[in-house]
């Protein structure tokens, strides 16, 4: 109470001044409609300006909260964007599979996948795909590029990922086929000698083939449809017994730059496998 009295004692001159000034101004303001309107307009404008300043100050102090809210919103939108990008990428992959499919592939199912990681500088190279057993991936599925260039075969699957054994793996082996100028098919074996990531070996090529550099070798396997290219003959040689050719094949696919791939499932692969086993008994 004492402090309050002291406070008023200190500012009473100001209070008296404001009181008398207020009385005089009020008297003047209400003296005529003109002064009333004018002073009302001025005080409204001043009040508005002060209110605006107060609002600006309040807005300034609310900025950190607004920033936090915006950051949360940006994070939410970023998550949605990434999700939509994944959907679009998945749709594009599916469209790649559709493009790669042709009528002669009726016994095959095509789906798309993306390379998660790969190696190309070892003797036993591998490619990891972002699709696994949960996406209907199976062992022994064929893998090719959207341009129908041979990549390899699926050798194992987890729930979300698959491992592909590519041509550039010294354990890799598949059948090949040369088609000569009169559409005769000549079969061969495709392997890799671990000398170059850009080349494979074709062996056991019949001596009846009118072999030449630049000839195309396709995959010949029940796991892959027709027309999947391994590469072209860069050089060839005949064995010492003069019974077969072997050729150095320039690979059609660049194994170190494979990104999107088409995974091929042979519908009748199990049936063929059973048939071969029965025949071997």
């Amino acid at each position, binding site marked *: 109470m004492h402090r309050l009295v002291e406070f008023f004692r200190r500012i*009473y*001159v100001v209070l*008296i*001044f404001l009181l*008398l*000034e207020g*009385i*005089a*101004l*009020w*008297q*003047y*303001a209400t*003296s*005529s409609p*003109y*002064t009333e309107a*004018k*002073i009302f307009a*001025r005080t409204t404008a001043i009040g508005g300006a002060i209110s605006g300043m107060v609002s600006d100050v309040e807005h300034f102090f609310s900025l950190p909260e607004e920033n936090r809210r915006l950051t949360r919103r940006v994070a939410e939108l970023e998550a949605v964007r990434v999700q939509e990008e994944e959907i679009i990428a998945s749709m594009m992959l599916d469209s790649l599979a559709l493009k790669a499919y042709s009528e002669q592939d009726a016994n095959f199912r095509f789906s798309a996948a993306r390379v998660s990681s790969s190696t190309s500088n070892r003797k036993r190279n591998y490619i990891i795909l972002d699709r696994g057993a949960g996406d209907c991936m199976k062992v022994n599925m064929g893998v090719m590029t959207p341009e129908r260039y041979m990549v390899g075969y699926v050798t194992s699957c987890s729930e979300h990922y698959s491992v592909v054994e590519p041509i550039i793996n010294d354990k890799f082996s598949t059948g090949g086929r040369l088609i000569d100028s009169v559409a005769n098919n000549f079969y061969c074996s495709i392997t890799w000698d671990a000398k170059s990531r850009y080349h494979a070996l074709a062996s056991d090529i019949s001596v009846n083939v009118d072999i030449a550099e630049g000839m195309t070798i396709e995959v010949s396997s029940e796991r892959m449809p027709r027309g999947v290219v391994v590469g072209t003959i860069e050089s060839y040689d005949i064995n010492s017994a003069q019974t077969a050719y072997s050729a150095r094949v320039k690979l059609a696919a660049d194994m170190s730059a494979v990104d999107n791939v088409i995974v091929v499932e042979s519908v009748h692969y199990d049936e063929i496998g059973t048939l071969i086993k029965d025949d071997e008994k």
Partner: protein
Amino acid sequence: MYKYMSYVWMSLAVLFVQIFILDNINIGASVAIWMRPMIFPLIVLLLPTEWKMIWVIVVAYVTGYIMDISLGGEGLYAATLLPIAVIRPWLLYLTTHRSLEADGQSHLLLRLNVRQLMTYIAAALLVHHALFFFMEVLSFGDVVRLMLTIVLSTLMSLLIGWFVVRLFISKVLVK
């Protein structure tokens, strides 16, 4: 109380001159809109400095109130004279570089030279006239005319008021 009687007489004289002479001289409407001499602020400007601010404010309000009643100002005179009472110490300090609190006004005004005294009176009249004429029109619509009215009226008030100031100093303060 007796020593302040001269201030009372001076104030009454100034009010008389203002109300009955300056506001009743027929100088023609074309001149009157540009020049309206007002010397009544001198009542506040020449008050003793030993007076507390509260009494200066009261005197200013009473003076303004009398003017309002006499001339139909409806609060305009009081509203524009009160701020002069409040800023009087700063005006004196700014124009003469002397503080009111340091000494009695009678001695202070006597020690001021003519230039300093005139600057103080002129600055105070200019501020008062600016407030008064702006409050009267409450508009910046014709700012040139408003400025001219303020300046010309201040000059006229200073011219007339200067005789009052000199008379006051010689007849009241020198005693």
